[in-house]
Structures are given as structure tokens and as C-alpha cells.
């Protein structure tokens, strides 16, 4: 394959990645919503969860974005040091985003901070956002996209606590964030707590938490235990489905940690709406593309 052909192939694969992210909710999230529907006793909430499941069906059948807010487009790239054309990826991802905006279509969501003018194609300064991780001894690339809706992002927080406030302060902040968010974040939500030395590390950890599938616990059993307790606590608030007072407030709570500085205890809390759209693709050095987050689509053809 020539470099041009390879670049074109990655671009087309990225357009498909954006399409499947916008149209097909990951199966872990869908199953959790189905489970909530089956368990629900409230008449109004059952009707609302039915609307959510009907919505997913219509989106998949008609290949429409399941939510009109196709979000801030965030790419998480894990690239092998020997992956060819690594340097072309930023250009390819931006071009794919602009083309996908027209083709799928996505809602143009990139707005000039000073003038308020919309760029119209989802491309602008630092958008789509590209987060990089370089993987030693690998010649593959793994690209995950998150479509992050504005309503749920509006309650994101970052704060540097004192070590004295520490873990207790962090746990309290999760409950308080869910309490304050109420119906605004389209619950049931996925909530993530990130902890680290600095504000930016903590937010990065929180986003990592949002990328983890619903129902998957942290490998460290101490943190897994905290996650279970947080999930129980948040759900005992009782906001429920779209804040109507019955059903789950959170589908899951994830905690991701980095080490901290002796004087700091930076925390970040991020919330994902029930329309928690994320998708992953893998590209081998010879250009073979798979979508492990949406392997069910390959089975369905």
C-alpha cells in the first residue's frame, strides 16, 4: 500500500468509527439500560426507559445518531512506536471528522470562543481533541473516540484538595456532584472519579474512568471496593431516571488513580450521560482494521 492509500484507508476507517460511535451504543451500556427497564416499577420511569430503548432501536435500524448532540469529539490514540504514518494521524483524524460531519451527519459543535461563530465542520483549535499514548515495541494503533455531550460535561469538576481532606473529601465530592447534577446530566449516568498530583492528571484519570465499560471493576481490589460503595451511595440519593425519583441514578461509578504529590490531592469528577458513546478501532501495520468495541456489528455483518 502506498502512503496515500494507507492514509485514505485510515480516514475511511475513522469515518466508520465516528458513525458506529454515534449510532450504536456500546453493548455494556445498552444491557445496563435494558436491565434498568426490566427492574423498573415506576410507571413514568418505565415509559421513559422504554423511550430510551425505542430510541436505540430506531437509531440502529435507520443509522441515525442516537442523540442529536454528537458531542465534543475526543480521540484517545494509543500508537505503537513502529506504527507507520504516526505523523499523519492528526491530519487524518481532522479530515475524517470534517467528512463524517457531512456524511453521517454529525451536529457541528465547534464554536469560536470570542465570536461564538460555529466552524460548521467540527474542526477547530484543539478540536477534535487528540490524546496520545505511545506504546513501546508495537506497530499497531488503537484509536478510541468518545462523543461527549455538553449536558453531562457541564457538571465536570476539578479541584485540588488538601491531603488532610484526602480520600474522604474525594468521596464526598462524588456524592455532591451527583446531588447537584440532578436531572441535567441525562441520568442514569456513568460517573468517574480521577485522583492525581495535579489538576490535569486528575481530569485525565477521570476521563479514563469514563472509557471503562459499565460493570467492569478496577483491577486493584481496594479501588474496586470504593467503586462499589460509591455506586451504592450515589444510587441511594434517589434522583433516578432523568431525575424523576425512581430507578438508577448511576449505571456505574469508576475510580482511576495516579500517584499524588506530598502536598496535593487533586480530584476530578466527570459524568457521562446514558448516551455514553464511545468506540474503538485497531489498525495493524499492514492496514487491517477491526472495531473491538463493536464486534457485534461484524457478526451481524
Amino acid at each position, binding site marked *: 500500500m502506498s502512503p496515500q492509500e494507507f492514509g485514505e484507508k485510515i480516514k475511511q476507517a475513522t469515518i466508520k468509527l465516528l458513525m458506529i460511535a454515534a449510532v450504536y451504543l456500546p453493548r455494556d451500556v445498552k444491557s445496563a439500560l435494558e436491565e434498568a427497564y426490566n427492574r423498573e416499577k415506576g*410507571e*413514568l420511569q418505565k*415509559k*421513559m426507559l422504554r*423511550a*430510551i430503548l*425505542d*430510541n*436505540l432501536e*430506531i*437509531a440502529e435500524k*435507520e443509522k*441515525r*445518531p*442516537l*442523540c*442529536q*448532540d*454528537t458531542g465534543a469529539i475526543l480521540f484517545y490514540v494509543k500508537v505503537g512506536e513502529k506504527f507507520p504514518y504516526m505523523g499523519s494521524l492528526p491530519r487524518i483524524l481532522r479530515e475524517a471528522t470534517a467528512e463524517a460531519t457531512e456524511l453521517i*451527519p*454529525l*451536529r*457541528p*459543535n465547534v*464554536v469560536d470562543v470570542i465570536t*461564538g*461563530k*460555529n466552524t*460548521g465542520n467540527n474542526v477547530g483549535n484543539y478540536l477534535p481533541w487528540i490524546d496520545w499514548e505511545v506504546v513501546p515495541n508495537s506497530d499497531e494503533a488503537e484509536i478510541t473516540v468518545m462523543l461527549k*455531550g*455538553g*449536558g453531562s460535561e*457541564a457538571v465536570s469538576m476539578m479541584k485540588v484538595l488538601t491531603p488532610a481532606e484526602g480520600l*474522604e473529601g474525594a*468521596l*464526598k465530592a462524588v*456524592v455532591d456532584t451527583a*446531588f447537584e447534577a*440532578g*436531572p*441535567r*446530566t*441525562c441520568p442514569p449516568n456513568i460517573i468517574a472519579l480521577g485522583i492525581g498530583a495535579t489538576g490535569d492528571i486528575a481530569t485525565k484519570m477521570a476521563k479514563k474512568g469514563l472509557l471503562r465499560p459499565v460493570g467492569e471493576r478496577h483491577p486493584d481490589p481496594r479501588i474496586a471496593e470504593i467503586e462499589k*460503595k*460509591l455506586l*451504592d*451511595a*450515589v444510587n*441511594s*440519593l*434517589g*434522583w*433516578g431516571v*432523568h*431525575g*424523576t*425519583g425512581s430507578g438508577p441514578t448511576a449505571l456505574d461509578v469508576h475510580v482511576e488513580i495516579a500517584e499524588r504529590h506530598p502536598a496535593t490531592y487533586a480530584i476530578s469528577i466527570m459524568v457521562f*450521560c*446514558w*448516551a455514553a458513546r464511545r468506540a474503538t478501532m485497531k489498525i495493524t501495520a499492514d492496514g487491517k482494521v477491526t472495531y473491538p468495541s463493536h464486534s457485534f456489528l461484524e457478526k451481524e455483518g
Partner: protein
Amino acid sequence: MSMAEYKLRTPVSEEEVRKLSIGDVIYLTGTIYTLRDAGHKRALELIAKGEKLPVDFRGMAIYHMGPIVKKKDGEWEVVSAGPTTSTRIEAYEYDFIEKSGVRIIIGKGGMGKRTAEACKKFGAVYTIFTGGAGALGAKGIQKIAGVHWLDLGVPEAIWVMEVKEFGPLFVIIDSNGNNYYEQVKEKVGQNLKEAYAKLKL
């Protein structure tokens, strides 16, 4: 809490709107207009200057929504159309209800005291369409009959939409000024201690 179901057609009368209570479900047919933050701001500025708005909101429904649209053979089509968070629009809604004569507001995420006051005083309701359900929303929209203020960008423009049995819409604020979310919030406030206790806080 009641959960009566109503099928309404725009324009709706004050009498029809005054019948609705929190928890009721509406399916709406007729014309609805999208209106978000920037649209409210401009509409109120024009009204203040005594200028005419591009559409007549009296008896009509507004939808806090910025759609995905595409143009096919010169005609706009709706692709996905679920609600946006209404709380941002709280700053404008009292004045807008008073001055525009709008009767039904559709959004998600709830609205505050001032909006509830306006609903009571002028005869309007705030309802929610299931947040995130953009594909379902598009299904209830039969066509785009027009668009105004496209210079504000696709999400913020006024989209004139013909809808058929658009819903379910859940009444969250009724014309008695009852706010369903305020009632839930009170309960949640009482649960806060229990949530802290579960974490030994």
C-alpha cells in the same frame, strides 16, 4: 401524582394548558419551534425594541433543541432531534413566556422558580422529552417547514417543525406553578445523609 395522557394540537388554548398537571403525558401534533439560549436572547432583544419576530409564538410550543439536519435536494431534513438542558435558558424564560404568549415548553433537565412563576401567571407548562432520545425525536417530526436565524448556527437557529404525536412529553411544571423536580429534589436532599453514611462520611 396523576399520569393522564393528552393528545394536543398547536396552537393550544390557555384552558387546555391549565388542565395539565405534573406527571401528565402529552403527545403533540402541529407546528413547534426550536429555541435555545441565543434564540431567546435575540427574541427578547427584538421584542424590547418593538420589532417583529419571524414567527408568532402565541399558543405555540417551543423546543429547547439543536438538531442534526441535512439538506437533500434543497430541502432540510431532520436526522436527530432530542432536547438540550433547559436550565441554561432559565435566565430568559419568564420574560419570554410573558411577552411571546408561548404555552408549551419542551426541554430536559428542568427549570427554576421564575419559569414556574411565569407558567402560573400566564398559563403555560414546562415539559420534558426523554433526554438523549434524538432518533425517537426525529421520528415524531414529519418535516421542517422553515428555518430562521441560521446565522446563529445550526443548533441555535429557529427550526419550524411539523410534528405528529410528538412525545412522550412529561409535564414537569404545570400552570399551578407545581415543579415536579423541586419535589424530587426535596426527597433527594433528605437522602443525602444516608448517602454520606454509606461512605462513612
